[in-house]
């Protein structure tokens, strides 16, 4: 009887999973497999597929455009990741207080998250406009001549990072908020009895208790920011003079502008390997040094 039940359960599960599994196979799994195959070929979509072995991969390693794009992607991560984490943690701690209207603020901080990237990018492009933008206007009020932002090669990436941090604060905040609410109150009570100050509370209770949350946040953000593209494409198209060109943009350009499907696939797989290596290393580090209550 138990066996029969299990069988029915599996059947029901299969029926429920089938539609999305089908979609996923056709639109995700098969393309992934074929991109691996294509990465060893030369193909312009129209002509014949030619086998070229490892040639695409050795070109990726030598291509100065890819080096530039990887460097800019790492610059983006270096600017984006710490900022979004620190600010979100701060906001989460504020929103974790028993304040009036705290629910309203929580919702407010989440609005950018559900807004489309294209809309956000367009708005920020306007905010950061060097002549007519409100950011430079506000800076001028306190006597600072604002930079050219997106049209200035030295500032464009900072503009992109700023926009990305603004958009993602809400998402990371929600995760941290959940983490904060998981921390048992008695730890703080005990600490209060021992007479610890605010910083010590944070350093020895909050931060260690949040370590698995932080791990999750770092992993998710790292993977996402290696794939940064939308905001760059809308705000700068990789410019000025290629100063904000990123990895996914190189994939896009090679695939859909230069019609080099094989080469674009190879770049995708190199990017996959990089992300995998980072995540793997991070996972190892977490196991070694991280605090875990399990």
């Amino acid at each position, binding site marked *: 009887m138990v066996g029969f039940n299990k069988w029915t359960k599996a059947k029901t599960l299969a029926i429920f999973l089938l539609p999305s599994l089908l979609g996923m196979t056709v639109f995700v799994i098969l393309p992934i497999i074929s991109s691996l195959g294509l990465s060893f070929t030369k193909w312009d979509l129209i002509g014949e597929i030619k086998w070229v072995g490892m040639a695409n991969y050795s070109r990726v390693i030598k291509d100065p455009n890819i080096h530039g794009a990887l460097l800019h992607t790492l610059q983006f991560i270096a600017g984006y990741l710490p900022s979004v984490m620190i600010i979100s943690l701060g906001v989460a701690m504020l929103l974790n207080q028993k304040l009036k209207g705290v629910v309203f603020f929580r919702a407010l901080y989440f609005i950018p998250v559900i807004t489309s990237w294209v809309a956000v990018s367009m708005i920020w492009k306007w905010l950061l406009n060097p002549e007519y*933008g409100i950011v430079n206007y506000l800076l001028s009020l306190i006597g600072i001549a604002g930079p050219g932002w997106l049209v200035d*090669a030295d500032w464009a990436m900072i503009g992109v990072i700023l926009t990305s941090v603004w958009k993602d604060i809400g998402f990371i905040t929600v995760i941290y908020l959940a983490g904060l609410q998981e921390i048992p109150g008695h730890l703080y009570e005990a600490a209060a009895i021992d007479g610890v100050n605010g910083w010590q509370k944070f350093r020895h209770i909050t931060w260690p208790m949040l370590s698995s949350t932080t791990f999750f946040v770092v992993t998710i953000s790292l993977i996402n920011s290696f794939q940064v593209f939308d905001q760059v494409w809308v705000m700068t198209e990789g410019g000025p*003079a290629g100063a904000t060109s990123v990895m996914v943009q190189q994939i896009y350009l090679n695939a859909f502008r230069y019609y080099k499907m094989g080469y674009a696939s190879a770049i995708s797989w190199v990017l996959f390997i990089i992300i995998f290596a980072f995540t793997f290393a991070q996972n190892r580090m977490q196991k070694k040094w991280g605090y875990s209550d399990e």
Partner: protein
Amino acid sequence: MKKWTSFALILILVVSVLSGCASTEAPVATEEPAATEEPAVTEEPAVEPVTVKYMTFSAAPDHIADLEAMIAAFEKENPGIKVDYETVGWDDYFTKLQTQVASKTEADTFELNYENFVTYASKNALYDMDALMAKDTAFDPSVFNETALNAFQLDGKQYGLVESFSNVVMFYNKDLFDAAGVAYPDPSWTWQDELAAAQKLTDADAGVWGTFAPIQFWEFYKTIEQNGGKIFNEDKTEVLIDSKENVETLTWMIDKINKYNVTPNDAKMSGQSDGDMFKAGKIAMLRSGIWMFGSFADADFNWDIALEPGNTQKAHHFFSNGVAISKNTKNPDAAWEWVKFYTSSQEAAEIRVASSWELPALTDETLLAAYLEQSPPESREVVFEALNTLVVPPVIESWNELTDIVGQELEQAKLGQKTPEKALQDAKVALEQLIQ
């Protein structure tokens, strides 16, 4: 309760799968041809009408009504053929076409600009029109401008009919010239004359700039010819982009921004297009395409056009669009009728001229007379005078890569990250790999 939950789950699944499928098909902007035709004259047995699909980038957004008028005229003349059109924006057009050709779902007939024509013809995606032309006794190739028609040949075979052409001239704001007391540009002008005028016309306090030309690939390959330079040698086996003349040209282009301050930099333009700034009276001289006539027609100042000043010689852009038939079409004869009508018939050409939808590349003088009569600009004959010194794009098969590589080097030079010499030397190295 449970029933409802499972019902909701199923609903969500179905919807998500459906939307997944739907999103693979890009929205198609086809429009059914207007209602039914007049009651068919029943002399011949009614034939099932053949549908010819046509994809275009140049009709939207300003000329959809004109295209529809052409289709209506065509369908009236050819009751057995219906035309379904689809417009796709320029930015996505070739990505879409490439994918469609790859999956053999492309339209029977589609528009190609000259630069991309070479790519598609050499990839063997187009229908060889020679047989269709030979069969059609009513067709006379001499109605076309010969040079323009021959541009759509590859290895002596016709793979497309030329639809239209356009070029770039110098637009100038007469009111600003009058106010500054500067004589209008004339054909004898050189870069030096342009600079002298621009310096008088520039008024930094009022935000008025003397002259503007973008620093990008298209502007570059024309401007170097005004100084006797080239990107490639004749048979495109050698890269000449870093020649002394070209370094001089790029230096001149950049100096107008940084040294002479007669052209706004990117920060000063702040995302406005050069056309918008001209129309707002902020640019006195603008190198731009004749496709701006329509947009500038309602400017609240007087403007006209002139030939571009050159340095050692004159040079003007020449852009051309053509229409090709897909190699995979099931109705080559019907497709041919439509392409022929659309590119060369009197009716279509008249509609095109009346709305300044570029210019038909036809020899019919009366058509051109109608074009010249229109105003503004007053000096429309300049459009044809510019053709005497036309420069065709230096097309190679990896055209998009070429434009990106050179474009990026030019931008680095513009931003002062590289000297013009270094930028062009670097471009040369990259282009040499490209044409290997």
